[in-house]
């Protein structure tokens, strides 16, 4: 193999599993260390730089980082990354004077954003400090998008949402509440320098089965996201005792738990397939079941039972899942009586307000054609991000898209090609303090993952907006931070110093290191002391070593970043160095070309 190119930030970035998995590349291990040191403000601000909404995300993030966490490979349980983010947010002091600010002098460029969801707000957050004038059009009277209208207050208190959205708006957004954009042509005619579409995926999917249109009075068949929205705005305050939720994604979880709080007693979530196929996050399923919601598998909706113009139940086909054939077959049917049905089977994009003759092309599923890197549509100057771009995702993806879109908008407005992206950079900082002294807690802590405490069930449903999760206690936090393996503290190798004494190899508790003759990747991998079970992870190969010409090989997959290799190396050929990924934002793009 050729010597590994560690000058490319991608190599070390990959080693930091959580940061690699995070769409916004949040520097997780560093913020966890800051929490460990009680530096909550710093931890919060470090989070905010990449994910913009730490307090919101500390409660609601989809957390793609957690399944990726190295700790799962060590003891099966990820570090509670998301919960710790909430700790930083909850315990922060007043950070107002450390937040980005818009300069008094503007740069003369005007940007229009459609929708006040996390995507548009992030664009505003990135562009206002550069002197842009940002106008956001929002059809509702409040900001936050689905975070406001759909994520229930018992998961995300309004005060938390208000605080983090308002901070951006107060930077100087010209926000036009109650203003629905009905024509892109008209908006473009207003002469904005760029338009950002952050309008989300606003339409809940229908289920056109027999009986769907047979009710005569008020309907008891609800579209999940619309129903949640009407709860958020106080229009819906009750539901029948027997509720069927169709679908088993995260929307279904919010619908069943909301039903529980509005008077539902017998609540069933109806799933077509067995458990392994559920779309809902495991923790949401757990919380719903804890609240007494029943989940029925292998039930496929057949028709709505409407008697005398009134919904009385729903008929289902009972399926049997044939594992080898990966296919269900019908074995029976059943009618389940109910008072209400909530449809939570997905969301769709809809752009009735975008004229199709503007040069903005649409592709499959009526989604606009958007460049995945630049977020630009086929109409120069019009950018997309969040759920509007590629269909429903989540908040952290909306933020990640918006950071990229902000760079593109900045390029576009400065006459720089949008595909000219400012590069990622990195810093590597030695953590050695002296003999046996490292500036991080390098001991491996075998503690298990801390469990989140919840408001007791007897009190939980007393108010619709009572936050269920209590957050970590000081003790839980202290324990959890020590579970992080500090994957960003990299093992950095200087081959010319190595005398091939084997000390590092002998001491490594995870058998990641080998000194051996070079070979092709597959062949070399077959000669490692621990089998290479995860080829996704890097295999570091040094240049030929001075004494024998063999190479140092490291399988990054199993390294626990304990630093013992560096500790026992007589020549400091190994060093533990903190990797700091320099993520480019719109503000860095300016620097890149003003030089």
């Amino acid at each position, binding site marked *: 193999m050729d010597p590994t190119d560690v000058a490319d930030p991608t190599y070390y970035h990959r080693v930091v599993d959580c940061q690699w998995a995070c769409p916004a590349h949040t520097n997780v291990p560093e913020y966890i260390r800051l929490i460990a040191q009680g530096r909550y403000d710093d931890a919060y601000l470090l989070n905010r730089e990449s994910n913009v909404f730490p307090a919101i995300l500390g409660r609601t993030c989809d957390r793609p980082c957690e399944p990726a966490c190295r700790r799962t490979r*060590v003891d*099966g349980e990820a570090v509670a990354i998301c919960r710790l983010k909430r700790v930083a947010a909850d315990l922060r002091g007043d950070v107002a004077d450390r937040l980005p600010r818009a300069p008094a002098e503007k740069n003369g460029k005007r940007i229009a954003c459609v929708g006040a969801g996390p995507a548009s707000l992030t664009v505003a957050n990135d562009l206002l400090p550069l002197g842009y004038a940002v106008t956001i059009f929002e059809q509702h009277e409040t900001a936050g998008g689905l975070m406001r209208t759909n994520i229930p207050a018992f998961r995300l208190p309004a005060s938390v949402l208000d605080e983090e959205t308002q901070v951006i708006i107060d930077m100087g957004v010209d926000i036009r509440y109650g203003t629905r954009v009905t024509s892109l042509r008209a908006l473009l005619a207003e002469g904005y320098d760029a338009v950002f579409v952050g309008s989300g995926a606003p339409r809940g999917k229908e289920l056109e089965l027999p009986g769907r249109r047979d009710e005569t009075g008020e309907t008891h068949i609800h579209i999940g996201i619309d129903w949640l929205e009407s709860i958020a705005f106080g229009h819906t305050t009750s539901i029948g005792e027997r509720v069927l939720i169709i679908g088993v994604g995260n929307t279904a979880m919010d619908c069943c738990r909301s039903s529980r709080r509005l008077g539902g007693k017998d609540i069933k979530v109806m799933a077509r397939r067995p458990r392994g196929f559920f779309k809902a996050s495991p923790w949401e399923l757990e919380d719903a079941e804890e609240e007494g919601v029943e989940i029925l598998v292998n039930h496929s909706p057949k028709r709505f039972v409407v008697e005398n113009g009134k919904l009385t139940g729903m008929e289902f086909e009972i399926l049997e899942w044939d594992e080898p054939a990966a296919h269900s077959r019908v074995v029976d049917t059943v009618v389940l009586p109910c008072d209400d049905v909530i449809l939570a089977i997905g969301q769709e994009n809809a752009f009735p307000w975008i004229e199709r003759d503007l040069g903005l092309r649409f592709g499959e599923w009526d989604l606009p054609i958007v460049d995945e890197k630049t977020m630009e549509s086929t109409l120069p100057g019009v950018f997309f991000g969040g759920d509007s771009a590629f269909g429903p995702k989540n908040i952290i993806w909306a933020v990640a898209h918006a950071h990229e879109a902000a760079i593109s908008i900045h390029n576009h407005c400065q006459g720089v090609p949008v595909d000219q992206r400012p590069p990622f950079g990195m810093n590597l900082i030695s953590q050695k303090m002296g003999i046996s002294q*490292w500036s991080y807690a390098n001991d491996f802590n075998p503690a298990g993952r801390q469990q989140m405490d919840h408001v007791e069930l007897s009190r939980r449903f007393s108010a619709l907006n009572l936050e269920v999760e209590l957050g970590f206690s000081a003790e839980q936090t202290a324990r959890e931070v020590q579970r992080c393996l500090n994957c960003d503290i990299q093992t950095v190798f200087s081959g010319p110093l190595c005398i091939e004494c084997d*000390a590092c190899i*002998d001491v490594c508790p995870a058998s990641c290191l080998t000194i051996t003759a070079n070979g092709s990747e597959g062949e070399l991998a077959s000669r490692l002391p*621990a089998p290479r079970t995860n080829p996704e992870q890097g295999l570091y190969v040094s240049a030929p070593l001075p004494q024998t010409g063999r190479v140092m090989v490291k399988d990054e997959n199993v390294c626990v970043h304990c630093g*013992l290799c560096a*500790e026992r190396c007589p020549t400091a050929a190994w060093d533990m160095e903190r990797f700091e990924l320099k993520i480019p934002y719109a503000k860095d793009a300016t620097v890149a070309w003003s030089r």
Partner: protein
Amino acid sequence: MASITKPLIPLVELERNELGLTVRDYEGAMSTLCAGCGHDSVTATIVRAVFELAIPPHMISKLSGIGCSSKTPAYFVRGAHGFNSVHGRMVAIATGANAANRKLHYIGVSGDGDSLSIGIGHLAHAIRRNVNMLYLIENNGVYGLTKGQFSASTDVNSTSKRGEPNLLPPIDPVMLGLSLGATFVARGFSGNKEHLLPLIKAGLEHTGFALIDVISPCVQFNDHEGSTKSYLFTRHHEVQVDDFTLFQDGIHANGSDDGAVTVSMHSGALLRFRSLPADYDPTDRASAIAYLERHKAPDEVLTGLFYVNEAAPDLHELNKTVTEPLVAVPFERLCPGASALEELQKSFV
């Protein structure tokens, strides 16, 4: 904050031996030697060897004298018995222990100072008695623990860290062993574990006194230019004489043995040597000595299993001792009383 204990990482799947133990079960305390010391590699190789041979930890007795090398028994097989003796007396203690309990595996670890200066008299007699043990000399050409004075194994003109040459001729532990009649004589290099591991395993399988001289660089005091015991010098001058395979279970030794020399061991293991030099037979002491004498070039560090003799009687056979460990012999037999003593004394008159 810092920690230098080697943690046990739960999910790293570790290989298990016949006893169900992992290699980590054969480790000891964290080494306190200088980072990069060759002795640590020898420790790691001993751990690997006893793991692979699946020796129960409590059936091992580890002994040493004084020196950095002699500190190492603390760093392997924490479940073993051990004795850290005074300087140069390790093998005297080992002889006594072995006399009392022949069932254990004895691993003695010594240094060139411990063995070739203060302890040489004891070493000579243990070889003569063919005490059934593995005797490792971690040879770095200096007294490491006392800060790098020349030892009795330092080569002529090898220099100290400050550049002064040694003028006294060295004692070669291999030649010493061969001339005194050691029944297993080998040399390895801490920087070449692939070769050292089978040597140590074979030494543990051997019945009788197995002497292995391991070149084990002292990074602190003898790893400089001018030293003939440095990593670099040894790497550039090592000449491996043999290519042998140890079959732990001799019956399953496979492959043809054309032109190979095969040695069956008491333990049931089998040693097979191939690609031997034409004028050399590792089961013939005279041939081994002659071969080594001919190759005594100052720029060659010969390594290999030079000589093995499974036929010589060991301490117990020579002294016709009881087969049981003394602890297992009933007290009445062990100490039959005054009348039995009188009987015995009568037989002398």
